[in-house]
């Protein structure tokens, strides 16, 4: 091909161009700035999502009482709040957190590139997401309130304004979510192209740090699964605005089709959010165990297998939706099958911990705590995968507890672990470990105290999506469980205060971070903290696997990826002195 130029590897720090404030901090094309913008957006949206959780839990524990700081939660408001809690937490917190922030910050650094493959597209994808968030927030203020049809927006509830009483709120919800999809499709182009095409010499696919692998697989899953739902969103929007009846049965539409389109995306989406969380754990656990990651290739193949299987499990969300029974059995089988690759990942991480020199920093605590918590989520998933048991459990709080036990450990515990771990690299300062450990303990204990009672309530048959439970006699015995869960929720929310204090205090007053405070191997630790514009001052060359820790024959217990084999003269920025205290 005459036009196909070989992918050039742009290396070397560029002289920082003198751009104005707007171009350096707002409309920046630097992947590091964009990552911080994603981080800021996701943490801001997390405040909204957390506030929604507070209102939901208060209403469930002490129904129709005055909620401090808000007032009374009306039934219609309650529906809107649970809808917005789900939408915000999945699409506008978890995705920007683990994909937007960590993917953007780390993929170029970890493969040794100076930026993403398409920096301007990268900027555009963030601002597209920003517009999406703005549209979603705007939907709180339109007449008749925000969407109230659940975060899954099941038709026909969502397809006609008359059913929920929501008019523009649901339309804006659809538009916001569609914009969010467009944003992450654009981001995915960058993830894929950068990870495949911008690797420095020596960085083969089998030497990629796990985080890059997970972001890559997540980007592929997202791209392949979201298309039919975008089509469905167009159709649902037309149903609402123009009055067509794609999903309304009165003129031949089929509500079940929306559920299929939604979950064909929705299930891979769980792994889109979850795998990068695992990626963060897989970076952190070897560092603080001083051991190589166990079973690198097995994990990669396991994740690819999980990715493939994730496209054939979606109907397990619909066992009680009236799907054809002939579909239920195959989907049960695939769902139970998909626990195998995840078991491989979990056991590999456990074996990595085994016999290691474990150091419980805040990052490690969140990584291990998240892993432990995820196991509960994963195991309860097997219950729900069995169609027969799912029929009993699906409409109950068991499902609520289950998906919080899968998504929270991966996206939120994983995200916090990553933040404590890479904060020095992002902002050039260390975070306070004491506050970090307090944050972990509060989060870990309270999180379990919220959702273990909900598992029990679910097994007892407590249906979810009920505004006011005290009017049902059969639910009265479950009420104490809800009170415990709510008190724990208050603790969970209060437990984030040390983090907020820590975050802003460390930004300003934290101890200056050296290049490699954790003595880690991957390439991002071979440059300054924070990395300069252009990331690396010298061309990087990779000679090793990413997890060479604790080799008894080596002079020190870590070998950076760019450290040449047994060559006395260092090549590139690989010479790292053991300085500072840990």
């Amino acid at each position, binding site marked *: 091909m005459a036009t196909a130029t070989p992918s050039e590897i742009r290396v070397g720090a560029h002289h920082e161009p003198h751009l104005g404030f707007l171009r350096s901090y707002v409309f920046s094309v630097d992947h590091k700035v964009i990552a911080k913008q994603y981080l800021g957006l996701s943490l801001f949206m997390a405040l909204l999502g957390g506030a929604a959780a507070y209102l939901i839990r208060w209403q469930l524990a002490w129904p129709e009482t005055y909620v401090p700081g808000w007032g009374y939660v009306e039934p219609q408001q309650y529906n809107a709040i649970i809808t917005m809690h789900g939408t915000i937490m999945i699409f506008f917190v978890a995705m920007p957190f683990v994909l937007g922030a960590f993917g953007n910050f780390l993929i170029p650094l970890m493969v040794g590139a100076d930026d993403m493959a398409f920096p301007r597209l990268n900027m555009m994808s963030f601002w597209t997401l920003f517009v999406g968030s703005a549209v979603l927030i705007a939907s709180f203020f339109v007449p008749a309130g925000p969407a109230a049809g659940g975060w899954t927006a099941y038709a026909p509830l969502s397809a006609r304004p008359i059913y929920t009483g929501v008019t523009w709120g649901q339309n804006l919800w659809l538009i916001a979510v569609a914009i969010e999809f467009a944003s992450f499709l654009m981001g995915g182009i960058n993830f894929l192209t950068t990870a495949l095409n911008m690797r420095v010499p020596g960085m083969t696919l089998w030497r990629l740090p796990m985080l890059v692998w997970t972001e890559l697989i997540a980007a592929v899953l997202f791209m392949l699964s979201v298309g039919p739902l975008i089509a469905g969103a167009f159709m649902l929007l037309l149903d609402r605005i123009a009055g067509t009846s794609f999903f309304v049965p009165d003129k031949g539409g089929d509500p079940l089709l929306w559920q299929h389109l939604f979950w064909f995306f929705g299930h891979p989406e769980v792994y889109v959010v979850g795998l990068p969380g695992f990626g963060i754990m897989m970076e952190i656990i070897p560092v603080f165990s001083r051991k190589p990651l166990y079973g690198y290739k097995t994990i990669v193949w396991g994740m690819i297998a999980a990715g493939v299987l994730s496209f054939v499990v979606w109907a397990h969300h619909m066992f009680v939706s009236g799907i054809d029974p002939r*579909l239920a059995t195959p989907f049960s089988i695939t769902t139970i099958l998909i626990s195998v690759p995840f078991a491989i990942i979990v056991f590999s991480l456990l074996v990595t911990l085994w016999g290691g020199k474990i150091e419980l920093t805040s990052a490690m605590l969140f990584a291990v705590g998240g892993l432990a918590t995820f196991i509960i989520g994963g195991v309860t998933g097997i219950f729900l995968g069995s169609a027969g048991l799912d029929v009993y459990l699906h409409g109950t709080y068991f499902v609520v507890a289950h998906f919080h036990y899968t998504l929270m450990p991966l996206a939120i515990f994983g995200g916090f672990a990553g933040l404590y771990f890479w904060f020095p690299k992002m902002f050039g300062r260390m975070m306070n470990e004491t506050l970090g450990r307090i944050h972990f303990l509060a989060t870990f204990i309270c999180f379990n105290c919220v959702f273990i009672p909900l598992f029990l309530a679910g097994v007892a048959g407590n249906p979810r999506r009920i505004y006011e439970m005290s009017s049902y006699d059969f639910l009265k015995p479950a009420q104490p469980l809800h009170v415990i869960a709510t008190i724990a929720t208050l603790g969970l929310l209060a437990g984030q205060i040390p983090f907020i204090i820590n975050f802003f205090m460390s930004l300003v007053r934290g101890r200056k971070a050296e290049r490699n405070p954790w003595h880690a191997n991957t390439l991002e630790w071979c440059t300054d903290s924070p990395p300069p514009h252009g990331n690396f001052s010298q061309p990087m060359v990779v000679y090793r696997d990413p997890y060479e820790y604790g080799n008894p024959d080596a002079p020190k217990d870590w070998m950076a990826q760019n450290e040449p084999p047994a060559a006395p003269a260092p090549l590139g920025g690989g010479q790292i002195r053991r300085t500072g205290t840990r």
Partner: protein
Amino acid sequence: METLLESAATRAHYIAIWRWLVVLAIAALGVSLLPISKIAALVLIFGIAVVKAAMVMRDYMHLKAETLIIHAIALIPILLFIGLALTLIPDIALRH
């Protein structure tokens, strides 16, 4: 850079493909007017559409000269949505 001769040959190839595409389009129209069974007509018409699409992708979008990764990016989604459609047949198409 190609030689002049090769360049003329490539051009002629592009035009030949176009000629086939137009012929096939007309053939599909012809099939729709033929007095044959509905199933046979559907098979023929969509068979022709697949051939046309394959020709455009192979020769105009240069899929024949692409590497494995591009082939995968192009073909996996096609297989995936066909799989989606097949899986949904019992639920959506046969329920009424």
